[in-house]
């Protein structure tokens, strides 16, 4: 799951993924803005056919947070 998440982050935002780990912070390390986060949420919703609630987005601080969320909800 972690590898899938990292690959989807890379392909959606068109960024290099070699330095991204489960500990990578989306805002502090990858410098993501709100638009990037919404972009990612829509990409995850499409890939896993799920609905991510708006209030859950603020919990996506690190790659691991996304992995945990998807493992619980997919």
């Amino acid at each position, binding site marked *: 799951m972690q590898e899938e998440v990292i690959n989807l982050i890379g392909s959606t935002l068109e960024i290099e993924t070699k330095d991204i780990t489960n500990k990578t912070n989306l805002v502090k390390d990858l410098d993501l*803005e709100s*638009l990037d986060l*919404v*972009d990612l949420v*829509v990409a995850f919703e499409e890939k896993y056919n799920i609905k991510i609630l*708006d*209030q859950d987005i*603020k919990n996506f601080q690190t790659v691991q947070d996304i992995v945990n969320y998807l493992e619980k909800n997919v």
Partner: protein
Amino acid sequence: MYKLFIKKTKDSKSFLESILNKYHIKNDICYNEYGKPYIKGNPIYFNISHSKEYTVIAISDQEIGVDIEHLTYKKKLLNKIANEEEIKAIKNEHDWTKLWVKKESYVKYLGMGLSYGLKNVDTINNHNFRVKKYKKYYICVYKEK
């Protein structure tokens, strides 16, 4: 009343410090549960946004939200962020970017960010959005009249 500062920088912290120093405001910044910064014990409100190489800071005597975004058109996100009426009005990158900065400035005004749900922001009937174009960017300030 509000004042808007725009600078070609990614260092929003130093930019904010320079503005606070200019107005002799003590730099005692705290954050609410959604991450919105505010100055403890001071009736000065501010909000920060950045996009690519630009940072904007809005300062006001009442709660305020600001957003800047480089011209973009992400049609794919429309169903996530906009209602049917808004979607019908989006024809190009200018419309899209204006819609985005309006919605973002509002949720930042509320201090809730994306948790509020961009789709819940009504940009049709609310007339408190102040949108301006700056180079290849749009900036929106939201405050109640």
